[in-house]
């Protein structure tokens, strides 16, 4: 430690002279220092001295990282335990969304309908087997004597554009044969053919219609919804009855005569208004009846796309380990985000502290230089 570095040879003489006149401490001072030293107690090594911080850091860093990962894993396992579909959150949601948009996906039943029917035939449909009778058994029967709005949506896959053309025509024939009609048809046969048909079929024949449509191709998805219209219809009938009674009463007053010209004019206006109202209500009632009499079937026919079948299929639900890993990754990402956030918040404070420290140090050194620049 005290190895003297070489000093320029030019100063050898002066250095020698300086070293020759070495200053020694006077005996009184030595005595004072001995007294001071006698009061010193053997210090217990401080905690800082006892702890080798490099070793602590070497151990603590992997321990902390392991703890973070373990916590994430435990959280992932706990939160995914036993609830496959419910906790698979984002992935399941994504799969559902894909299923809803993909023609090859599993059937999804609309939730915005008052009556939702989940046919067991959906499994067959997902597998892509020609549905036949199973599809029929999956549909809900018409609501007996009650009026109902019956809607069917079917997504079918056909083999080629030739088949697409044939099956589109067949679907229209089925509807007409059962006493229904075609509301609209959109047909396209470019690279990948598709056709969309909107058909109305009498409710009494709807099951036969579905059976017929099922034979057009492979069912990809199927939705059936049933909205009860009986309540609305009954209300309309009741309103019509009341209005008719009111019109009859007004008519009787008009026929009786003896009214002033003002009252007569007012009664005539009222009667005209009530008749208009009655007409509108009757039309509404007829429309409701018509809506309940005919089921609406929306058919979508698409041609098959062999490669895309596997690419677009929803991923199989992962196992528990997979879900736990996914959840752990999510939690670790969250921890990382929080770490970055904390760094961003702490960085300005750290910079301020460093600037303060550097400023204090510079100021202290400047003062020292000034003090030491003076000669004795």
């Amino acid at each position, binding site marked *: *430690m*005290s*190895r*003297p*570095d070489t*000093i*320029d040879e*030019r*100063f050898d003489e*002066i*250095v020698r*002279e*300086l*070293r*020759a*006149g*070495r*200053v*020694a*401490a*006077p005996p*009184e*001072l*030595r005595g*004072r*220092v*001995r007294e*001071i*030293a*006698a*009061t*010193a107690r*053997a*210090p*217990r*090594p*401080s905690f800082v*001295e006892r702890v080798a911080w490099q070793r602590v850091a070497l151990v603590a860093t992997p321990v902390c990282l392991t703890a973070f990962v373990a916590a994430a894993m435990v959280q992932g396992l706990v939160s995914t335990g036993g609830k496959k579909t419910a906790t698979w959150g984002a992935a399941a949601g994504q799969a559902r969304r894909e299923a809803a948009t993909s023609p090859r996906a599993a059937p999804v039943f609309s939730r915005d309908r008052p009556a939702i029917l989940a046919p067991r035939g959906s499994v067959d449909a997902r597998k892509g087997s020609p549905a036949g009778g199973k599809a029929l058994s999956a549909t809900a029967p018409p609501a007996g004597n009650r009026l109902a709005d019956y809607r069917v949506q079917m997504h079918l896959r056909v083999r080629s554009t030739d088949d697409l053309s044939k099956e589109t025509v067949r679907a229209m024939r089925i509807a007409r044969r059962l006493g229904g009609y075609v509301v609209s048809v959109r047909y396209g046969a470019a690279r990948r053919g598709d056709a969309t048909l909107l058909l109305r079929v009498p409710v009494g024949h709807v099951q036969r219609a579905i059976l017929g449509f099922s034979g057009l191709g492979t069912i990809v998805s199927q939705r059936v919804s049933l909205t009860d219209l009986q309540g609305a219809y009954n209300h309309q009938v009741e309103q019509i009855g009341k209005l008719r009674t009111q019109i009859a009463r007004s008519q009787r007053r008009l026929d009786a005569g003896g009214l002033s010209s003002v009252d007569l004019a007012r009664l005539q206006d009222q009667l005209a208004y009530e008749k208009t109202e009655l007409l509108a209500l009757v039309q509404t009632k007829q429309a409701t009846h018509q809506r309940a009499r005919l089921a609406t079937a929306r058919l979508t026919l698409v041609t098959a796309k062999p490669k895309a079948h596997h690419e677009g299929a929803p991923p199989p639900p992962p196992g528990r380990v997979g879900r736990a890993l996914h959840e752990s990754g999510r939690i670790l990402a969250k921890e990382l985000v929080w770490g970055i956030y904390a760094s961003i918040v702490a960085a300005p404070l750290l910079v301020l502290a460093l600037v303060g420290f550097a400023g204090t140090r510079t100021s202290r*050194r400047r*003062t*020292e*230089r000034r*003090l*030491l*620049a*003076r*000669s*004795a």
Partner: protein
Amino acid sequence: MHAVESLRRDRRAGVERRSFASVAEEHLDDVHAYLVYLTGDPIVAEELTAETFERACRRWKTFDPRRAGARTWLCQVARSTALDHFRAEERRRRREDVYALREPSRSGAPALSEGFSPPLESALRSLSAGEREVIALRVILELDGETAARVLGISQTACSTRLSRALQKLGEKVSSNVAA
């Protein structure tokens, strides 16, 4: 495994604490010489040496042998004590300047060392405290460049430059004093 344990034991022994009394006894002369050069006044240096050892005694538990040698640490404590003294002196002078004339510089101050020739003594007194300090550390205490730089709180290059300039200046002053 035994070799590793043995190495660890040796390392521990190498940085083992000695008693403060033995350290004080060993380095008293060095600390005193350093302060004599720094202050340029043996009487003040004596007081500051005692104060330095008082401070060092209080802070002895903070001394870490792994970071620096005892002599280096004592020199740092001595430097800090001397700087505090200089600050206090400066405050006192400023305060007194308001009410009275500045006290004349002491002409009869005791010599830095009995062994110095008058031209060298005079030349040393004409140097600044900072210049005498670096001479004390590098020439008198024979600290190496790195340790001296650590005590001064500057880089090794700056320390070397400061020493060269101080010795150059000292040599010139001695020559001019001899000629006079």
